[in-house]
C-alpha cells in the first residue's frame, strides 16, 4: 500500500429529514484511501450518498462527523487543488468556451497578464481538441463539447486531483466513448489522482484502478473495494476481450443488482470492519465455460478472491 493521498476517515453525513424533527443518515463511518496517481471510481445506487462524498471532498459540503485528509491537509472548504468536473457541465452560459476556462485560470493566477491567461487557457482547450471552437458560447456547443470545456476548465487550474461527478452520464454512448478515450489520454499524460462517481460498470472497468462499491442508502457503507485486475493499458475496443473482464463485470453487476440491496437490509458491519473494507480481486479461473456447472448463479466462471480484509488504512 502506497501512502494515502486522499484519506477518508470515519465520514458521516446526516441531513434533517422531511418532517424536520428527525435526522436522515445518508452514510455513517466511511473509511477508505486513494493513493497518489490512482484512479478511484465509486459505484452505488442513487441515494447512497456518492455525490455527498464527492461534495465533501470538494469542500462544498461539510460532514456531520469524521474528516477527509488530502495531501496531508484537512479538507476545510473548496480548494483550487481539487478541481471538480460537474455532471451538468456547469459552464457559465454568458461566457465563451475560452472565457469559461479563462475565468478559472485567472482565479488560479490573479497576477498573470490577460495574454498569459489566454494562452494558458488556449493550451488546455487544445488538449481537449476544442481549439477552433473557443469563441463559441456553451449553447452553441454539443453536449460532449460542453463537457470537454468542463474538463479543460478543471485541468487548466492544474489541480492535484480531479473530482468527477458522473461527468458523462448525460451524454449519448458514442460521445461518452470519445470522452472516455480523452480521459484515458489525459490520465496517461498527467498521472493525476482521480475520484469519480459513475453508474456505468464498463466505464469504471475502463478507467479505474479501483472501484468502491457502496450499499444502498440510507446508512450506506463501503461494502468492498474491487481492484481492477485488467492490464493498465486497455482500450474500449479491446476491453471485453481481456480475460478478467467478465468476472469483474459480473461481480460488479451482481453487486448492483442484488447484493447492494441485501447488504443494506442486513445490519452494518462492526466498526473495525468498516475501517478496512474488504479488498476483492475477481479473476477468471482456468475452468472453461461448461466446466463450472457446480458454481452457483449465472456468473459461472467467476471466483471472487478475498485477499485481506485488513488492508492498511492510513493512521
Amino acid at each position, binding site marked *: 500500500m502506497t501512502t494515502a493521498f486522499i484519506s477518508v476517515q470515519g465520514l458521516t453525513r446526516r441531513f434533517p429529514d422531511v418532517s424536520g424533527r428527525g435526522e436522515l443518515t445518508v452514510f455513517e463511518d466511511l473509511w477508505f484511501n486513494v493513493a497518489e496517481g490512482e484512479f478511484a471510481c465509486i459505484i452505488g445506487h442513487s441515494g447512497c450518498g456518492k455525490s455527498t462524498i464527492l461534495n465533501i471532498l*470538494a*469542500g*462544498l459540503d461539510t460532514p456531520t462527523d469524521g474528516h477527509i485528509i488530502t495531501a496531508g491537509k484537512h479538507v476545510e*472548504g*473548496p*480548494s*483550487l487543488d*481539487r*478541481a*471538480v468536473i*460537474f455532471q*451538468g457541465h*456547469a459552464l*457559465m*452560459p*454568458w*461566457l465563451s468556451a475560452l472565457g469559461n476556462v479563462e*475565468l*478559472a485560470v485567472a*482565479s*488560479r493566477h490573479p497576477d498573470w497578464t490577460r495574454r498569459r491567461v489566454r494562452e494558458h487557457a488556449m493550451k488546455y482547450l487544445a488538449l481537449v481538441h476544442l481549439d477552433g471552437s473557443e469563441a463559441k*458560447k456553451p*449553447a452553441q456547443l454539443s453536449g460532449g463539447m460542453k463537457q470537454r470545456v468542463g474538463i479543460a476548465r478543471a485541468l487548466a*487550474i492544474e489541480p492535484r486531483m480531479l473530482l468527477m461527478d458522473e461527468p458523462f452520464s448525460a451524454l449519448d454512448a458514442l460521445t461518452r466513448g470519445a470522452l472516455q478515450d480523452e480521459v484515458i489520454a489525459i490520465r496517461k499524460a498527467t498521472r493525476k489522482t482521480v475520484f469519480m462517481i459513475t453508474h456505468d460498470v464498463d466505464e469504471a472497468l475502463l478507467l479505474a484502478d479501483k472501484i468502491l462499491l457502496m450499499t444502498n442508502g440510507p446508512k450506506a457503507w463501503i461494502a468492498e473495494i474491487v481492484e481492477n485486475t485488467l492490464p493498465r493499458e486497455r482500450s474500449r475496443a479491446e476491453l471485453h476481450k481481456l480475460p478478467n473482464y467478465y468476472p469483474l463485470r459480473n461481480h460488479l453487476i451482481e453487486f448492483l443488482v442484488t447484493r447492494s440491496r441485501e447488504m443494506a437490509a442486513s445490519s452494518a458491519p462492526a466498526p473495525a470492519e468498516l475501517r478496512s473494507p474488504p479488498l476483492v480481486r475477481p479473476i477468471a479461473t482456468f475452468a472453461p465455460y461448461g466446466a463450472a456447472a457446480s458454481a452457483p448463479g449465472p456468473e459461472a466462471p467467476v471466483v471472487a478472491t478475498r485477499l485481506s480484509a485488513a488492508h492498511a488504512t492510513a493512521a
Partner: protein
Amino acid sequence: MTQKWLGLRAALLSLALCGLVLGTWSLATSGSGAPVKMDPEYAKLMGATATHGKSAMPGPAEVGAKLWQHVKDPFYDKGTNDKGIGIQLAYSIARVGLGYLLAVAVAIPIGFLIGMSPLIGRALDPFIQVMKPISPLAWMPLALYTIKDSSISAIFVIFICSLWPMLINTAFGVANVRRDWLNVAKTLEMGPGRTAWRVILPAAAPTILTGMRISIGIAWLVIVAAEMLVGGTGIGYFVWNEWNNLSITNVIAAILFIGVVGMALDQLMAWLQRLVAYAD
C-alpha cells in the same frame, strides 16, 4: 419566405387600420349637419362649429398640421407658458432619467443584499410589501413639504416608483442564480466580490434588466401626472396648460409625443436586455 410575406401583410394591415381610424376620425369631426339659420355676421364669428354642427374636436388634418409645426420647431422658448415641445419633453426625460438612475443606484445594491442574505431579505420584506403598492403620487405632498422644491419632488416621485420593480427583480435574480455556478465559483476559490461581479451579476442580469424595463415604463407613466401637479415645465405640464388653453389639438399632439418617447425608452431597455441575455 413566409416570414417576409407575413411581415409585409402585417404592415399592409397596419396601414389599412390606420387609414380606417383616421377616416372615421375625419368623418366624425367634419361638420356635416344642416346649416343653421342665423345672422351671417354671427355665423362668421362662430365658425363651422356652430353653423354646420361641427365638433369642437379637431380633425386629423388639424392635428397633423400641429404635429408638423412642433416637429419643425421643437426648441423655441417664448416664456414660461410657450416653450417648444422638444424643450418640454427634454425636461420630462431629464427628470425621469435622474430619478431613475438614483433608483438604479439604490435598488441594485440593496437587491443584491436581499438576494444574497435570507436574513436581510426577510427583515426588509414587510417594508417592501407595504411601500410597493403605494401610488407614487401619494408621496407628492410629503415630498413637497420636506424637499420644498417642486422639481426635485417630481424627481423623488420618479425615484420611488422606479425603485420597487428593480429591487424585487434584482433580489429574485440574485437569489435564483444556479447552485452549480456558485459551486464553480467556490471551487475556484473566488472571493465574494469577484463572485458577485463575475458570476452573480451576469447570471442575474436578464432578470435585473426585466425589472429595469418595467421601472422605466412606470416612471414615464408617472412623470406626466407628477408634472401636472408640480407645474412649470415638462410634457405633463404642457398637456395641462393646453387643456387650460382649450387647445385640444395640442393635447392630442402631446399625447402622441408621449407615446413615441415612451416607446423609445422601452426599446432602449429592450436593446440592453438583448445585450445581457444568454441562451442556456
